[in-house]
């Protein structure tokens, strides 16, 4: 690791930059970070290193800029292969499965969760809520069967956390915040016993604990987002 420069442009409330922090800590890679003021004043460094999307996370590794959290996770896994745990499993089919559910989490689950608390219209909020419940049920099923949760695997990655645990895990405090704002329970011991147990296990992992945002602080932020960025449509 001598001579390596690893910097993360992050935002305390972002589930995406959280994923990158967890991955680096899990692999024991020391890094500096820059806390971005996303709402008011993005840094020049951010605008230069991610000119296309202008958002976090950005991983800056020896002057190379890597953007988009899922892409950063694979970059970390490939660059520091053999260091610490592997994030993705070796089998092509397992990798495809993990990538599939990561895309599902970002495209479907993340979208419906946003709709649940940000849609202005009651009917749209209801639609988003139903979709979220459905998406979570699909994840519960997948964890149980495709990822052997029912056979005793504690994490999507197997015995220890991996790529998909980190992808879903980035959202854990947000899920709790949205439950609090909407009064709707998304993950509980009766309807989603596997995910419920997984969540508690995940939050106890050292590399996770140190970076999770504080619930109360994120709840306040959640209310702010609800007010400042309402969703007028929902598809």
């Amino acid at each position, binding site marked *: 690791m001598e001579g390596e420069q690893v910097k993360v442009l992050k935002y305390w409330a972002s589930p995406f930059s959280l994923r990158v922090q967890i991955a680096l800590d899990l692999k024991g890679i020391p890094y500096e970070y820059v806390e971005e003021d996303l709402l008011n004043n993005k840094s020049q460094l951010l605008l230069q290193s991610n000119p*296309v999307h202008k958002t976090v996370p950005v991983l800056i*590794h020896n002057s*190379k800029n*890597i*953007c*988009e959290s*899922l*892409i*950063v996770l*694979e*970059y970390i896994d*490939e*660059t520091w292969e053999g260091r610490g745990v592997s994030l993705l499993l070796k089998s*092509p*089919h397992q*990798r*495809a499965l993990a*990538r*599939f559910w990561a*895309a*599902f989490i970002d495209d479907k689950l993340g979208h419906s969760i946003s709709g649940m608390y940000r849609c202005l219209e009651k009917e749209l909020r209801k639609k988003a809520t139903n979709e979220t419940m459905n998406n979570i049920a*699909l994840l519960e099923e997948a964890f149980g069967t495709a990822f052997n949760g029912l056979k005793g695997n504690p994490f999507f990655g197997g015995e220890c956390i991996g790529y998909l645990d980190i992808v879903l895990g980035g959202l854990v405090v947000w899920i709790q915040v949205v439950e609090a704002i909407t009064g709707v329970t998304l993950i509980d011991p009766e309807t989603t016993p596997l995910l419920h147990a997984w969540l508690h296990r995940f939050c106890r992992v050292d590399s996770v604990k140190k970076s999770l945002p504080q619930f109360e602080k994120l709840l306040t932020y959640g209310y702010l987002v609800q007010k400042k960025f309402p969703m007028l449509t929902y598809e």
Partner: protein
Amino acid sequence: MATEACGEEGQVKLLGLSISPFVVRVRIALALKGIDYQFIQENTKNKSQLLLQSNPVHKKIPVLIHNGKPVCESMIIVQYIEDAWDTKAPNLMPKDPYDRATARFWAAFVDDKLFPCIRAVFTGQGEQLQKAAEDFVTNCLLVEEALRTNSCFSGQPYFGGDEIGLLDIALGGMSVFIRGLEKATDTVLICQEKMPLLSAWMDRFCKSDGVKEVMPHLDKQVEFILARRAAWME
């Protein structure tokens, strides 16, 4: 062309429609790697049991079934093909992690930024359609710029270098669909004037071995698009 039965490593089936740009992506990857497969044409209005069982979450094509195990989502399938047949040339991904991240970044851009504009042109009318076409051009100009200035790509015949790679497949797989949309809706999406590098790349790509055999004919693509648009108008 679809061929019957198994490849060396086991049976490969592809569920899809030859007219779908997402299916085209997968067929290109399979053709480049020289992988034999059974192509099962789906009727999207009457989806087969096999499709519904293999992709219960999205119920969409393409689905690749390899040794009985399904893989879904076109770019995930392309990466799977590379991973599962990684010792078979050509390699669809570069070796260096940063180059791989760059290819993945722009492939994600195609799906997350370009494709929604394409879909909006496909389904849009009047002002909405014009706006979608403009948005497509704005976003596509970023890809043109990357092709011009990014050291991973500039001066090479393909995004993948001397040979077609993941990003070529991601965007190139859409070529006939994009040209078909231009004809069907009378819009300009990728023009020589504003996007000289992309235009040249697209022509080169569509004429390449492995690609030209699986690309739908432009007339059939236009026909398909017009038929869908007419059906929505009713």
